[in-house]
């Protein structure tokens, strides 16, 4: 399935939840915020949120800033 992640198209194999995808990247849940199809996805829903063909995902983290 084609998913647009942080602005770039990616090809992922279903079935896959947001939590599972983050785990493949080695990203701890506590360090990110996620928008799934332009809506903020609460952390407690990462495990249930299934990715589907055509979805968009934004994965955001804190960086140094003034």
């Amino acid at each position, binding site marked *: 399935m084609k998913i647009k*992640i*942080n*602005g*770039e198209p*990616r090809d992922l194999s279903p079935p896959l939840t947001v939590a599972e995808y983050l785990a493949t*990247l*080695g*990203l*701890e849940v*506590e*360090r*990110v*915020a*996620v*928008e799934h199809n332009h809506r*903020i*996805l*609460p*952390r407690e829903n990462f495990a249930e949120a299934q990715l589907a063909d055509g979805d968009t995902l*934004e*994965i*955001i*983290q*804190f*960086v*140094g*800033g*003034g």
Partner: protein
Amino acid sequence: MDDLIIAGRRFHSRLLVGTGKFSSNAAMVAAMEGSGCEIVTVALRRVDIDNPGDSMLAHIDRAKYLLLPNTSGARDAEEAVRLARLARAAGCEPWVKLEVTPDPYYLLPDPVETLKAAQILVKEGFVVLPYINADPVLAKHLQEAGTATVMPLGAPIGTNRGLRTRDQIAIIIEQAVVPVVVDAGLGAPSHAAEAMELGADAVLVNTALAVARDPGAMGAAFKKGVEAGRQGFLAGLGEQREKAEASSPLTGFLRD
């Protein structure tokens, strides 16, 4: 030094520190520790999916420092509100340093979009600390909208030019009903002292610490500047005069 209170929360330090541009996480932590700050700003950006790296958050003791996410990168109110909501979703307390800077050259804040975003975020329960140009009228509008502070700039971000907006900031301070935090452009401890002597409630510094040869020592130097300025302000500065006024008695000279 007397405590700083923002939105009912008490802080011992009147120096806020930004975490950008440091050469390493160790340098960032050294600056934070040297400065004695209790509030640190952070930004939100996309994770590099191909190279997620480690998280700078792992280096910040959340029991010691309040994370103040900024909305840097936002070009309008909508983008700023989105970033603030994401920061909250990322587990931050609902505090936000609101900045809307559509102009990439001087990074000057957009007053119209900042006010619009502030109104939305206050309604959503955020503690809003807006970064603004040193505009007393805008500062009033923001306070009326319910912001927790106003944060006028001393000079454009990262310029180290000091308190170029001094006269305007003095008016903001005179009229303020919330803490005034001078943000941006302060490049030396003396600049921080000057802002505090003027009656600012706090200052925020980033670049000056990040580019210092010794960020930890520069943090400590700014801490002293802030404390000296605050103490001088509270002690009551003498009036400036045009002509000399002798400190020594004008009688009893050894002459006929």
